[in-house]
């Protein structure tokens, strides 16, 4: 037990403020304190990526970030990517191309993929496989995940072109 710290963060656009022990892990903060249960716990050692969120513009594994490190940060989780009426193209593509089965890795997988496509809007298959290698899926064998991300990239690029 340590002295509690005063933490402020913005999660999916909403300002949050609370007292927490510095040892509290960000995934715990999100899931237990803020009831944001999209990100999951799979390994607690940074290997599986089920807990992936975007923190200050970077993909991070929330299971190995102390809440103290996330003080003052801006965080996006799967819940912040789309709404039921306006889904993110990746959310659509994963369903369309059977890019998920049990769904446990999916929030982290899609959240990571949003960053991948921001960093590289037109990735090759190899770049997708490398860029997603921090997220483990036990069900799909990745083939349809790669397909989903490719399809979403095409969709997003077409929408961008149409807007220009």
């Amino acid at each position: 037990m340590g002295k509690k710290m005063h933490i402020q963060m913005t999660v999916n656009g909403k300002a949050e403020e609370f007292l927490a022990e510095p040892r509290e892990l960000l995934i715990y903060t999100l899931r237990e304190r803020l009831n944001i249960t999209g990100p999951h716990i799979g390994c607690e050692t940074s290997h599986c990526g089920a807990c992936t969120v975007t923190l200050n513009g970077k993909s991070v594994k929330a299971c190995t970030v102390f809440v103290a490190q996330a003080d003052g940060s801006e965080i996006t989780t799967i819940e912040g990517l789309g709404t039921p009426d306006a889904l993110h193209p990746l959310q659509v593509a994963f369903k369309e191309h059977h890019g998920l089965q049990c769904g446990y890795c999916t929030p982290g997988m899609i959240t990571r993929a949003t960053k991948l496509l921001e960093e590289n809007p037109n990735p090759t298959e190899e770049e997708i496989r490398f860029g997603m290698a921090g997220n483990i899926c036990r069900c799909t064998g990745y083939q349809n995940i790669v397909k989903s991300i490719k399809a979403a990239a095409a969709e997003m690029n077409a929408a961008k072109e149409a807007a220009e």
Partner: protein
Amino acid sequence: MKDEVESREDRVGKLKGLGCSRKRVEDARFTQGKGNYVDDIKLDGMLFGDFVRSPYAHARITGINIDAALKVPGVLAVLTAKDLEPLGLHWMPTLAGDRQMVLADGKVLFQGQEVAFVVAEDRYAAADGIEAVEVEYEELPVLVNPFESLKSDVVLREDTVDEDGAPKDGAHGPRKHHNHIFTWEAGDRDTTEQVISEAEVVAESDMYYHRTHPCPLETCGCVASMDKVNGKLTLWGTFQAPHAIRTVVSLISGIEEHNIRVISPDIGGGFGNKVGAYPGYVCSVVASIVTGKPVKWIEDRMDNLMTTAFARDYHMTGRISATKDGKITGLHCHVTADHGGFDACADPTKFPAGFMNICTGSYDIPTAFLEVDGVYTNKAPGGVSYRCSFRVTEAVYFIERMIEVLAIKLNMDAAELRRINFIRKEQFPYTAALGWEYDSGDYHTAWEKALKAVDYEGLRAEQAQRIEDFKAGKTRKLMGIGLSFFTEIVGAGPVKNCDILGLGMFDSCEIRIHPTGSAIARLGTISQGQGHATTFAQILASEIGLPADSITIEEGDTDTAPYGLGTYGSRSTPVAGAATAMAGRKIRAKAQMIAAYLLEVHDDDVEFDVDRFVVKGAPERFKTMKEIAFAAYNQAIPGIEPGLEAVSYYDPPNMTYPFGAYVCVMDIDVDTGVPEIRRFYALDDCGTRINPMIIEGQVHGGLTEALAVALGQEIAYDDMGNVKTGTLMDFFLPTAWEVPNYETDHTVTPSPHHPIGAKGVGESPHVGGVPCFSNAVQDAFRPFGNVHTNMPHDHWRIWKTAHDLGLHG
């Protein structure tokens, strides 16, 4: 009017029934982060329980002091075996007829064993409490090798020997030694010995199918909530068999079964890991009763890998005999099965080695004998079927390796050896030497299709050239061609020979048609990613003529779902899928009577047509199922009860036998030991295909889990019984980077006894994939004298194989 102009084809299309690649209805919630897994459940005042675990693999416990732990802020209680003993819950029965300590009762038998259960306000307080529990251990000699265990004077399980130290009989008869669990036999020992001793050619091999773990991305866990006011226990958990869990909880706790509600919420993958009953479930229930509050227990990844549900760990010795021309005459298999400290294998009760007696594979082998000896060691209990029907992965790996070893002995092409020994199409239904009756198959057609698709002869020519180039120093990469042809045995199973703890392995479906022509169906199974809500609605749509999109499928709540034995061993489609079709046919039978009444004709004068009943010979006169549904609720029809509901409990007459033909092409760098999968072709025959998109997804996933097991994944122990692969740093789970694209293909040989001819597919790719990857590695080294090397073929082991064969100069 619109219906009249609509083509039959359009009407079929609208149903999204059998054969349609319907998009999954589950995905909306999963892609939006709105899944509801057990760790997402939050109840008022909920506490968190976690285990103090043994650091030793074998030790006597001389003292446990919980005083300091109880002083830790947030800790409410610490349970030990002493607390559970008055309730009779310090031990629990296992699915295999043995018993297992819930909390260490005087000693521990494997590293990570549950010693005490700390109940606290949250996970952090529980972790602090665990640190403060003082346990005194006195180390005992450790046995991690089953062969040594069978020779050792050290008695692992004092509770299984009499006062003189002699082994008491076990659940499966007499035991040969105090660390021996059972001997299980199938086939004809004497004839097999005779056939092999007189054979022209005999090939032999020892192989170790290493211990591994299903490792779903979500670990096991539960929330137990005892409502003391109403006397009701609700138990949410990662249960692949919720009804069986309810019955087990009732039997061991004494709580009447109607007062127990078990709910499996969304499950983040199972692969066999979530079939068993674990100490965490028992302790959570007890802790909830003791504290009067809901208690959650969730494994962390180390707990998961170290303690719940290992798979495999079979030491197999094979002899296979043949004529000089390669016609197989006999097969002998002996298995020494390492079951760990308690026999907690999840198999049908009468099958302590599962369906290992499917080990004659896809071949017409006239004589065979199998003997399995189960052994206690200081390893974790479990022995689940990791993405396969009971021990079928072991059986198929065994025979597919024996075929390769025999091909080497005969100096014959392994594809040809398979071809000349396949059970022929006209032999089905085929009774194998070890007793199973295969329902249907057309192996030759599948094999020819596969070999043609990959240009097998071309591949062998390329491989021959590669060997020349390698010998000439032009390349350091060898090429391996992995073949496998598998027959699975799934869909357990007929109640006459399949039960778990006395519960027959039937399954069930209950359908309610609503007045406006939509429906809900509930089943005794539970999806863990297989997409039941999508596919079972498709089966029903085709049976009852209402669109799949208008049918809700619900599973996993024992208060509402009919009794069933759950989802594992590819049994959902063969058993619950059959129940679904049969319940649908009951709906249709009643609908026929209602339609005949409405159309004012005799029952026999109407017939079903896609989504309606039509008057025979007058297709313009019809009533749609939607109209019939409404009539069932608003008309007084003489002799017919109102409503439109049905339930079916389906006891399958036989198992189903999916099969497939796989080919893997691999390049192996002999200096680094890195295999590169160039191509993987998978032909599956799962009988009638319900949803091709989902089948393909299952194949991709199963192959990837096969790749993992064959090429690196293992639960390894050191001599002290320490788990060396207890985190995802050491336990291999392939990422997108290591996994190839797969080519999928199919033939369709329906099951003759299944109502819609379906056989099940989820586990086939794993069962067939493991030997295929392994055979590819071994085939690459065949020209240099390799006969057999054990899995997992990780980079180091492949390098070592190359080194031992003198390929490093």
